C-alpha cells in the first residue's frame, strides 16, 4: 500500500513544513516515506509544491504524477493539480483563499477555511498546521497524537509559539471531526 499526498500553495504558506511533519509522523509510525520538493529556479511568487509518499515497502519512484490526495492552499494550486488526483482521493481546499471547487465527482472534497481558523487560534501564520491537522483528520494517515507530537517537536526551539500551534492543530482537527 502506497499513499501519495501533494501539498501545493504560495511560497510562504509553509507547505514544505506541513508535508515534512506528515512524513515525519509516518516514519515514526514505521512506514517508508519520501518527501520530494519541487525545486526550480525562481519559484518566487509562483506555485510551490511538494509530495509526500508513504508506503509499507521500499519506495520505488518518488516522482508522482497522480497523487492519492491533494492539499491545495491557494487557487492556482487547485487549478493546476486537481485533475491529477486519483479517483477516490481527498482534495483539500483552503476555502479562505479559494473561491472555487474541484468540479470532480470521483474524489472527496474537503473544504476548510484554514486562514480564518488559524486567525481565530491566534495567528494566520499557523494556517499550515491547521491544514495539516484537518487533512489528517480526514485522511487518517497517521495517529493524530503522534502527528501533534511531531508538530511540538518541530517547534521545540521556539517554545513560545508551541501553544499557538497546538491550538491551531486542535482547531483544524475539530473542524473536520465536527463537520
Amino acid at each position: 500500500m502506497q499513499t501519495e499526498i501533494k501539498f501545493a500553495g504560495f511560497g510562504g504558506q509553509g507547505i514544505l513544513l506541513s508535508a515534512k511533519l506528515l512524513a515525519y509522523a509516518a516514519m515514526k509510525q514505521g512506514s517508508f516515506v519520501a518527501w520530494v520538493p519541487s525545486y526550480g529556479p525562481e519559484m518566487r511568487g509562483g506555485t510551490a509544491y511538494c509530495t509526500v509518499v508513504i508506503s509499507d515497502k521500499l519506495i520505488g519512484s518518488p516522482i508522482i504524477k497522480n497523487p492519492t490526495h491533494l492539499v491545495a492552499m491557494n487557487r492556482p494550486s487547485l487549478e493546476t493539480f486537481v485533475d491529477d488526483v486519483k479517483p477516490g482521493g481527498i482534495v483539500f481546499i483552503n476555502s479562505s483563499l479559494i473561491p472555487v471547487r474541484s468540479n470532480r465527482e470521483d474524489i472527496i472534497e474537503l473544504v476548510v477555511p484554514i486562514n480564518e481558523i488559524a486567525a481565530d487560534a491566534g495567528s494566520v501564520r499557523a494556517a499550515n498546521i491547521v491544514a495539516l491537522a484537518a487533512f489528517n483528520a480526514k485522511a487518517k494517515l497517521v495517529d493524530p497524537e503522534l502527528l501533534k507530537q511531531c508538530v511540538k517537536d518541530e517547534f521545540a526551539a521556539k517554545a513560545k509559539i508551541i501553544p499557538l500551534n497546538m491550538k491551531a492543530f486542535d482547531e483544524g482537527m475539530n473542524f473536520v471531526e465536527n463537520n
Partner: protein
Amino acid sequence: MGKAFSKPTVLNDTMTHYCPGCTHGIVHRLVAEAIDELGLQERTVGVAPVGCAVLAYNYFDCDFQEAAHGRAPAMATGIKRVRPDLIVFTYQGDGDLASIGMGEIIHAANRGEKFTTIFINNAIYGMTGGQMAPTTLPGQRATTAPMGRDTDATGMPIKMSNLLGGLVTPAYVTRQAVLKPQQINKTKKAIKQAFQYQVENKCFSFVEVISTCPTNWGLTPVDSLKWAEENLLPYYELGDIKTPE
C-alpha cells in the same frame, strides 16, 4: 514642473522574474535608457551573467549572449576583439564578478578592453539563496555565514572599484547606487558616460551599482534601501574612482 516618462524602447514588455522591489529592475531600465539615448540598439550585444540577472536577455531588445558564471568579461573580450564595431556590455553580480570571475574582470580591465561592465553589488549571492559574497559586510548574515561574516576567517569585503581603479591602464571606474531617486539619476549619467567612452573607443568602463536583495537580506524592499544606505554606503563610498586621462 511636470514631465513625461515612458519605458525605453530597448526594454521589451516581458515582466521580469525579479522579486518585488529588487533594484536589478531599476538598473536594467537605466542601461536600456542609455542604449536608447545613444542610439546603439542595433549594434549592441549584452552579456548576461549567471546570477539573478541570468535571464536579463529576456528583457532587452538587443542581441545577447549568456555567459558562464564569472566569465562574462572573457566573453565580452572575445566579442569585442573580433567585432570592434559592436557595442558590448556585461551585466554582472558580485558573486559572479568578484568571486569566481575575479581573474577575468581584472585582466579585461587591465588589457583595457573596450567594453562596459555594469556591476551589481548587493553584497550577497541572490540567485542561489543568500550565500556570502566577497562583498558581504563584516557581521552581515548569509546562509554560509549564519553568524555573520567573520573577517578573521574570510577577510574584509572586497572593494572591486577601488581594486580595478588601482590598475595602471586607463579606465573609467565609478561607484554609484540606486537607493534613492537622486542616486538613480546619477547612476544613469554614469552608465551613459560608460557607454559613451566605449563609443569613442576610449577605454574600459566600469559602473558599480550598490543594490539591494530584499529576499536574501530578509527585509522589505523599503527597509532594504535603508539598510543599504546605512550599512553599505559607508563602506562602499560613492563617486568616480578613475576617469581616463
